[in-house]
C-alpha cells in the first residue's frame, strides 16, 4: 500500500518537474523570438501605409504630416549627436492666452499659424529674417461659441491643400482661405452653437473633399462627419454618428467585423426612445485616409450624457471607429471600442495606417490605435478585425478585450450608479490618452505615445437637457494613477505588442509627439519644457523651457536655407490646462469636469501664453 503511494508520488513529481521545465523552455523561446524580431531590420517592422505616406518634401501641410498620420519627419539633419546644440531660430507671439494646440504648417517657405481663440491665421514669410507676417486672416467667430466649448476654445489646426488653407471656426463654420492673398474663399455653416455644437478639429482634405466633424459631446449634440466640396464648400455628404441608418450613411456595403455591430438601425435600437437625438458621438478628433482603399478612418466620441444610467443600451455609433468611403460617405465597417461608454472614453484618437509584415514576408494593411480606453488596438484596416488589443496604460475599468467577440469586457464594480461615488477608476475621463496624437517612426518601427496616467472618482446624477448647456450628469475628481506621475511617454512596439521604454512625466502630457528620421522624438510638457529624446532608448538629449505650457503640436520642416527646423507652439490651455487659461479655482476639485483636481499645482508652474518657438541647429 505504502509502496504504491510512494511510486505514485514519484511519478507525479517527475511530471510536475517536466511540465515546469517545458514551460520555462517555451517561455524562453518566445522571448528570443521577440528579441530577434525587435532587432531585425525593416523586414519585420511596421511601415507606414505607402500610398498614405509619401516621401518627405520638407513641407508640413497637414497636422498629422501625412494621411497615414505618422507625424514623422523624414529630415535627419538634427540627430542625437547634435541635438544638444539646438537653439531658438525665431519666435512668434500670437498675442493670445488660450490653449494653443494647432500646429504651424509650412508650405513652400511660408509658415501658417492658426492662433488660439479667436483663431486668427498668420502667414509668416520664412525667407526673410525673423519671418515677418505676410498677411493675417480673422475668422471672427461668434463670442458665445467660447462658452459652449467643453474643454477650452481650442483649434487643432488647418489643412493645406492646393493653394488653400482649410480650417474650422469654433462657432461651427468651415472656411477656405486663399494662401496667396489671405482672403476667405468660402465659408460654410455646419454647426449650431445654440445647441452647443462647436468645431475644434482639424479638417482633412482627401479626394477633393474637406472632411470635418463637430464637437460638443458634453452638450447633448448629435455627432456627425461632413464632407464639403473643397472647391465650393458645398456639402457633399453628412454622416451622423447616431440615429437611423439613413442618417448614419449605413448602406448595403456595410460589413461590421463583429456581430454586435452588425444589423440594421442600430443607431436607434441601441438607445432609449429619442435619446439618440441628443446622444453625442461627435467627431472632434483625427482622421486618416488610405488613398488605395479610398477609405477614411475616424473615431466617434463619447455618448451623452456621461451618466450612463440615463442611456441604456450600447449607444451606437458612439465611442467606436468608422471606415467610410470617401466619395459617398457610406460606412464600410465600424467597430465599437467602448459600448455603452461609462467614463467619457471617446474613441476619437488618431489611427495610424501601417502595413504589417505577415509570416510569409508579405505585408497587409493595418491600423494602430492607442485608444482612450487604455487599449492599443491593432486592426486590419480593410475589415476592422482586431489583431491585438493590449493595455498600454494602467487599466482597471475594463477586464480586457475579448478578441473573439471583439467586445470590451466590463468591470461591474467600477460601474457608476446614481447616488454613490465609484472610486479609483483608471483611466479617467481623458482616458489613457486624450486628443494629443502619437508619432510613428518607420526608422524604429515604434509608436511614440504621449499619454496620461490619471484615475478618477466619479459620481453620476440625473442630467437635465437644456439645449446649449452641458449635458453631463457627473461629478468627477481626477488624480494621478499608480506611481503618482500624471503623464507618461511610451514607446510601443506594435508587433511585439509591448512597451519598449517609458518616461514618467509629473504633469499630464497634453502635447503631441514628433518623430524624425534623425532618430529623435520631440514632445512638450505642460510646464513649458520642450524635450528631445533618443528614439531608441528614450534618453533625454535636449530640453528647452518655453514661455508657457506646451500642449501644441510640434512639427519639423526644411527652411529656405535647407536647414531642418523644429517648431512648437507654446500656450497652456485645453481641458488639462483650463485651470490656467480660464483661471479656474483650484479649491473646487470638480472644476473643468474634474481635471482641476489633477492639475491643482499648474497655476504655480506655468502661466498663459501664445507663442510659436522655432528651433534650428546653429549655422
Amino acid at each position, binding site marked *: 500500500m505504502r509502496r504504491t503511494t510512494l511510486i505514485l508520488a514519484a511519478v507525479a513529481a517527475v511530471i510536475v518537474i517536466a511540465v515546469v521545465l517545458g514551460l520555462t523552455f517555451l517561455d524562453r523561446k518566445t522571448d528570443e523570438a521577440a528579441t530577434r524580431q525587435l532587432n531585425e531590420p525593416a523586414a519585420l517592422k511596421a511601415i507606414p501605409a505607402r500610398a498614405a505616406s509619401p516621401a518627405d518634401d520638407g513641407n508640413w501641410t497637414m497636422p498629422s504630416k501625412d494621411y497615414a498620420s505618422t507625424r514623422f519627419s523624414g529630415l535627419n539633419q538634427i540627430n542625437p549627436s547634435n541635438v544638444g546644440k539646438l537653439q531658438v531660430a525665431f519666435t512668434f507671439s500670437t498675442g493670445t492666452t488660450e490653449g494653443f494646440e494647432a500646429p504651424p504648417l509650412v508650405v513652400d517657405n511660408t509658415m501658417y499659424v492658426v492662433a488660439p481663440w479667436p483663431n486668427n491665421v498668420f502667414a509668416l514669410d520664412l525667407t526673410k529674417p525673423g519671418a515677418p507676417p505676410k498677411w493675417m486672416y480673422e475668422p471672427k467667430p461668434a463670442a458665445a461659441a467660447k462658452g459652449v466649448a467643453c474643454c477650452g476654445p481650442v483649434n487643432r489646426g488647418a489643412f493645406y491643400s492646393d493653394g488653400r488653407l482649410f480650417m474650422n471656426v469654433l462657432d461651427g463654420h468651415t472656411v477656405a482661405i486663399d494662401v496667396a492673398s489671405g482672403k476667405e474663399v468660402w465659408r460654410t455653416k455646419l454647426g449650431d452653437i445654440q445647441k452647443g455644437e462647436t468645431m475644434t478639429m482639424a479638417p482633412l482634405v482627401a479626394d477633393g473633399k474637406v472632411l470635418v466633424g463637430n464637437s460638443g459631446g458634453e452638450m447633448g449634440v448629435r455627432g456627425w462627419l461632413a464632407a464639403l466640396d473643397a472647391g465650393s464648400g458645398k456639402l457633399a455628404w453628412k454622416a451622423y454618428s447616431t440615429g437611423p441608418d439613413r442618417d448614419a450613411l449605413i448602406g448595403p456595403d456595410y460589413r461590421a467585423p463583429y456581430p454586435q455591430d452588425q444589423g440594421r438601425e442600430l443607431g436607434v435600437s441601441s438607445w*432609449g*426612445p*429619442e435619446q439618440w437625438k441628443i446622444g453625442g458621438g461627435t467627431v472632434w478628433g483625427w482622421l486618416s485616409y488610405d488613398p488605395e482603399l479610398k477609405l477614411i478612418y475616424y473615431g466617434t466620441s463619447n455618448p451623452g450624457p456621461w451618466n450612463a444610467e440615463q442611456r*441604456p*443600451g450600447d449607444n451606437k455609433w458612439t465611442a467606436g471607429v468608422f471606415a467610410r468611403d470617401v466619395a459617398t460617405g457610406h460606412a464600410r465597417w465600424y467597430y465599437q471600442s467602448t459600448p455603452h461608454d461609462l467614463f467619457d472614453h471617446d474613441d476619437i484618437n488618431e489611427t495610424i495606417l501601417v502595413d504589417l509584415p505577415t509570416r510569409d514576408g508579405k505585408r497587409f494593411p493595418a491600423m494602430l490605435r492607442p485608444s482612450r480606453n487604455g487599449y492599443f488596438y491593432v486592426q486590419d484596416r480593410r475589415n476592422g478585425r482586431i489583431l491585438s488589443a493590449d493595455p498600454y496604460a494602467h487599466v482597471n475599468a475594463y477586464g480586457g478585450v475579448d478578441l473573439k467577440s471583439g467586445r470590451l469586457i466590463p468591470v461591474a464594480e467600477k460601474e457608476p450608479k*446614481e*447616488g454613490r461615488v465609484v472610486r479609483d477608476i483608471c483611466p479617467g475621463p481623458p482616458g489613457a490618452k486624450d486628443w494629443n496624437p502619437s508619432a510613428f517612426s518607420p526608422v524604429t518601427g515604434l509608436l511614440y505615445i504621449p499619454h496620461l496616467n490619471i484615475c478618477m472618482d466619479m459620481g453620476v446624477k440625473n442630467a437635465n*437637457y*437644456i*439645449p446649449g448647456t452641458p449635458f453631463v450628469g457627473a461629478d468627477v475628481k481626477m488624480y494621478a494613477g499608480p506611481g503618482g506621475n500624471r503623464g507618461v511617454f511610451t514607446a510601443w512596439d506594435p508587433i511585439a505588442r509591448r512597451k519598449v521604454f517609458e518616461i514618467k512625466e509629473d504633469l499630464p502630457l497634453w502635447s503631441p509627439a514628433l518623430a524624425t528620421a534623425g532618430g529623435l522624438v520631440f514632445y512638450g510638457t505642460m510646464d513649458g519644457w520642450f524635450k528631445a529624446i533618443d528614439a531608441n532608448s528614450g534618453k533625454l538629449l535636449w530640453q528647452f523651457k518655453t514661455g508657457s505650457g506646451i500642449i501644441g503640436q510640434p512639427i519639423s520642416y526644411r527652411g529656405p536655407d535647407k536647414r531642418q527646423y523644429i517648431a512648437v507652439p507654446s500656450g497652456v490651455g485645453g481641458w488639462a490646462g483650463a485651470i490656467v487659461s480660464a483661471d479656474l479655482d483650484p479649491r473646487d476639485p470638480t472644476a473643468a469636469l474634474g481635471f482641476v483636481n489633477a492639475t491643482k499645482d499648474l497655476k504655480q508652474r506655468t502661466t498663459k501664453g501664445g507663442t510659436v518657438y522655432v528651433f534650428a541647429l546653429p549655422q
Partner: protein
Amino acid sequence: MNRRIAAVAIAGALLASCNGVQNVMGGDGAESANFIRLFTLFMVLCTIMYLIVVAALLAALWRRRRSGLTVDDRRHHQISPIVRPALIAWTALVVTGLTVLTVASFFIDRSNAATASKPAIHMTVTANQWWWDVEYNLPDVSKTLRTANEIHLPVNVPVHVTLKSNDVIHSFWIPNLAGKQDLIPGRLTDVLLLARKTGLYRGQCAEFCGVQHAQMALDVTVESKRDFERWYSAQLATAKPPATPLQRAGYRYFTTRECAACHNISGTPASGQVAPDLTHLASRRSIAAGALPMNKGNLYGWVADPQSQKPGNHMPTVGLEPNELHGLIAYLETLK
C-alpha cells in the same frame, strides 16, 4: 362596555366598506392576499388572547366582593394554589400562541419573497420630491418607456420594480398589491408586484419626505395583458403635433419658454429631465402626483399657480398671461 361593542361594530362596518383604491385589505395582489391571510390569523389569535386577559381581569375584580382579605390578616404574602397552575397554563398559552404567529409570519414572508420570482417585466421607479419617475425597462432598450406618477400593470404578470431615490428617503406603497419598500438614496431596493385583479388603485409615498409628503401619490392601473400592451404602445408614441392655432401657440410657449427647462415631451424639442415627463399627460388620471384629478379646470388651476394647490413643490408660478395660459392648456390637452 357597551361602547366597546359599538366601537367593534363600527370597526366591522368600516372594514367591510373598505374595498378602496388604497387599502391594505384590498387583497388585489399576491402579497396583499398573503397579508390578509396572515392578518386574519393574527387577529383571531390576538383577539382570543385579549378576551382571556379582559375576562381574567373582570373576574378578578368581580371576585373582590366575596373576598375578605385585609392587610391585617397577615396573609398578604400568601398565594392560593390555583395561581401556579394558572401561571404555567398562561405561559404555555402565550408561548405557544406567539410561536405559532412567528412561524406563520416566517412562512408567509418566505412565500412573499418567492412571489414573482420570475418577473416578466422590469421597471425602475425613482422617487423625487414629490413625484414618481417611472421607467419600464425592456431588453430592447429602444422600447424603454418613461412616464410619471402612474404605472400600468398587466394582471397576473409578475413585475420586478427597482426603486431609487433622487433626493431623500421615500417609500413605495401600493397597499392593494403589496407591502411598502423604502427608496433610499445611495441604495437600490426592489419590490415584486403580482396583481391578481384588474382595477384602478392608488399608491402613496409612505415615508415622510418633506413638506408635500401628503401629495405624492401614484395612480395604478391593473389591466388585461392586451389592454396593457395597447397602453404601452400608445405611450411609446411621440406626442402628436399641435393642430389648431391655439394649440400651436401653446406648443411654441412650451418648447421655447420655462416649461422646457424641466419637462420632457417626446417628439418635441422639450427634453427637460428634472420634472415629470408630460408626453402623455392628458391620458393620466391625475395631475401633480395625485394632487388633483385630471380635468381641464384643474389643469388651468395647476399651471396658473402650482403653489396654491401644492405649496412648496418645485414647480414655479410662472405668471402666465391669459392668452399664454389658454394656449398651453389647449396644447397640454392634446397630449393623450
